[in-house]
């Protein structure tokens, strides 16, 4: 069972691992402007989530995603659309 809170917490953990020097990372941090995450790194983050959850998650869900919270929301939205209620 995936929930937005669980995914959000995992996203934050992954980000802290990826950019340990970034300082405070919160649900509403701007991953590009505040954390300096390049587009490739955003896609790498998504690959890690795919492996963590053993799911296919297309990079299309990253469109318009700026913050960890938006990423969790977008991911939940994709899974619901693809699989029904998650």
């Amino acid at each position: 069972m995936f929930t937005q809170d669980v995914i959000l917490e995992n996203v934050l953990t992954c980000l802290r691992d990826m950019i340990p020097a970034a300082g405070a990372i919160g649900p509403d941090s701007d991953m590009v402007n505040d954390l300096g995450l390049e587009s490739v790194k955003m896609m790498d983050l998504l690959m890690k989530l795919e492996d963590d959850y053993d799911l296919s998650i297309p990079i299309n869900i990253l469109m318009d995603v700026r913050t960890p919270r938006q990423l969790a929301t977008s991911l939940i939205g994709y899974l619901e659309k693809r699989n029904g209620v998650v």
Partner: protein
Amino acid sequence: MGLYDKFSRLAAERSSLQALDPSPFGTRIDAVYSSTRGRIGGTDVILAGTNNYLGLTFDEDAIEAARHALAVEGTGTTGSRMANGSYGSHSALESELATFLDRPSVMVFSTGYVANLGIIGTLAGPREVVLLDADCHASIYDACTLGGAEIIRFHHNDAKDLERRMLRLGERAKDALIIVEGIYSMLGDVAPLKEIVDVKRRLGGFLLVDEAHSFGVMGANGRGLAQEQGVEDDVDIILGTFSKSLAAIGGFAAGRSSEMEVLRYASRPYIFTASPSPSVVASVRSALKTIAARPQLREKLWNNAQKLYDGLAELGYSMGPRVSPVVPVMVGSKEQGVNFWRALIEKGVYVNLVLPPATPAGVTLVRCSVSAAHTSVQIDQIIEAFAALRPTLELTA
């Protein structure tokens, strides 16, 4: 909000680099003397940062063919392939490429980028899934986005990871597009095509290989990596460009089946742009004949690549994973990279500076591109320039 405000971060990052003269981005090459020599500002340089792998940009036959086409067919077609832009020479080039590649169908596009948009962007519609190597060129990502397909990346050159991700897709994997490149443009490494083909045979999917950097460079006849690895029959579409070994501009797609022809009527990037100029088509036809007739060019290219790779490795530089016409050298931080690149020019060597995020794993690198036209003396001069600068990177290389 201003029209360009959203680019303020990018502008700030690049402003210091753009102020440099010469600038590593959009470097102005003030004179081109030959396929391997030019001038930047007041400095004569060896051109070691082009994609002119076979050195055919100044090939006399190609120039004469282009000159003749200019005289008899004019400067441009002024139209789409679908309308008035398909001359006999465009069709002849497609036929000659088909023969060269031993494939039934070839479509010619105006650039390599447009070829990827035109083929991948048309095939990879919103209901499709594309599995692409994480290090694929931006044009492939753009093409997938244009088509609206679901894009799943797999780890670079990792066929097992491709398999894992295909298994996750279940039945959808059978119709997925798998996209890889022949030689990868940043590190010069090559796709493990045999292993990828093995996955495809077991799990399904369609395989597209972008041979932009490997066409004319690899394979017994120069057909690319798929020929070199003996898997041509398993590649559904080969994509390529005229702007590297063929020394001009344009692109192509070569289908394993003549069914690909239907894309002439479905591919918007094929239809809604002007076709290549007759002179370009003529020089490409000539260069293709040269590639077929002179395999010694490939031999010279690889000898030069080996010599440069060995020479730089001996100096202790951190290099790409294998000998290749693309010879990347890691040079530390962005600032070190810029300084190193400028110092190379001062020593008479032009290469490409590539900064993250365009590079894999966030490294900064200078990328040398070897040409068959480089003389042994020029390769030595490139190595000498790197040798002179080696102490400046003592702590980071």
